[in-house]
């Protein structure tokens, strides 16, 4: 019963978010600011994690295909497909759910408990749309860019490992990266990322928007935002994979 109530509140909030904005110019400025907060400020973490994961997948794949009958370029193929199909979309989304989701939830939650959202309402402003819509646009626009970045950096991480340790020759690795490439994998990953951006921003905003009490509750709502958006991202991954790849 409580789940239905929460789901109802979530969809009511969404209907408010998609209401006509009061002033487009203000929303535009806020969206630019959110692109910096949500997107550009996530570059670092995406680059570091992707670089290491690309290198680790290279080592693990090499370790698992020691059979001399298997060509070495398979390492490059596996790294590429792992990154394109799963890591750079879903795993990066889970990382962003932690970083961006908790930040959104605590920001909006703090505004709720310190009456800043009430102040917006009193002024006659649609607070849900004003606060959430720019974040949503910024995330939908920028998460695919982060996903693409992760693909390139992850593949580069594997290449760097090959150059530094020669677990696989760089030439074999590069050949594998180019071997039977399906561009469809990239569009599949980017499509998933757009859905993940929507889930992370709206679920995190929902938990912040309905936070009650004090700083303790804001912390709790932030934790719930990360947990719930991560679970929904995984569920969406399953459904989208079934729909797109079947």
């Amino acid at each position: 019963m409580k789940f239905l109530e929460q789901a109802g509140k979530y969809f009511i909030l969404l209907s408010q978010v998609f209401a006509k904005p009061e002033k487009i110019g203000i929303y535009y400025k806020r969206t630019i600011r959110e692109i910096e907060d949500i997107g550009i400020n996530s570059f670092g973490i995406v680059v570091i994690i992707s670089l290491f994961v690309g290198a680790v997948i290279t080592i693990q794949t090499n370790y698992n295909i020691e059979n001399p009958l298997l060509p070495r370029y398979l390492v490059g193929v596996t790294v590429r497909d792992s990154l394109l199909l799963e890591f750079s979309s879903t795993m990066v989304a889970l990382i962003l759910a932690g970083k961006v989701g908790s930040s959104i939830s605590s920001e909006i939650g703090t505004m709720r408990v310190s009456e800043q959202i009430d102040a917006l309402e009193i002024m006659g402003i649609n607070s849900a749309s004003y606060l959430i819509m720019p974040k949503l646009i910024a995330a939908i626009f920028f998460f695919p860019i982060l996903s693409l970045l992760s693909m390139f950096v992850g593949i580069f991480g594997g290449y760097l490992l090959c150059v530094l340790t020669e677990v696989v020759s760089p030439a074999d690795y590069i050949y594998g990266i180019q071997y039977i490439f399906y561009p469809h994998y990239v569009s599949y990953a980017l499509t998933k990322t757009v859905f993940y951006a929507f889930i992370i921003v709206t679920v995190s905003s929902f938990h912040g928007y309905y936070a009650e009490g004090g700083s303790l509750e804001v912390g709790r709502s932030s934790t719930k935002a990360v947990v719930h958006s991560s679970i929904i991202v995984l569920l969406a991954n399953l459904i989208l994979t079934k729909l797109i790849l079947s």
Partner: protein
Amino acid sequence: MIEVQHISKRFGDNLVLDDVSVKFEQGKTNLIIGKSGSGKTVLLKSIVGLHDIDQGKILYGDTVFNALNFKEKKEVRKEMGMLFQGAALFDSFTVEENVMFPLDMFTDQSQEAKLERVNFCLDHVNIKNANRLFPAELSGGMKKRVAIARAIALNPKYLFCDEPNSGLDPQTAIVIDNLIKEITEEFHITTIVNTHDMNSVIEIGDKVVFIHEGKKLWEGTNQDILNTDLRELNDFVFATSLAQKLKDPVHH
């Protein structure tokens, strides 16, 4: 003028407002007083539409506010300004951006005209050389004054203040009280102040409404309140030993 007629509000099984009716007059500082938990904040938030009431009417002039839809309410809300207990300034905005915010949202004035209005409002509340500061860099009293400046930026017809003196020292509290009274009289607006500060009641209470356990038990002026026979109101007004000494210097 704002009038509430027979309003009731329930949270679950708890009846927080019970058939409250009162008129708040234009050009006067109207005070809602009562103990913590008496329902005065719920009354104020119901009047501004932050809580939906279960029964009754809230009238702004001749308009039944609680019967309006979201869009129609928005138009009335553009005529409201509110000072919240914690000031509720936007943390990520500077003082100037906070005061300019309603002008940005609801006017098409040039940047120069908006800046002129912002400086006029800040001057009015005696805030100088603080345009570039963020709320975290201001004292409690300054935050309240900036919040008043933001509330009056659009020339509101109605000003609401929720516990304007909470967390302030007595001297700063007097400054805020006087500011509210000055603005009310100068712009001839309807001001409703929610407070439990007896100093405010005596200093600025043109009209005082006493709420007790969700019911309106008394209304009158700041002069009448000292001579009332109502036990609940006397218990509230003369709760401190200082107030008791003033009332009955012989026995205290």
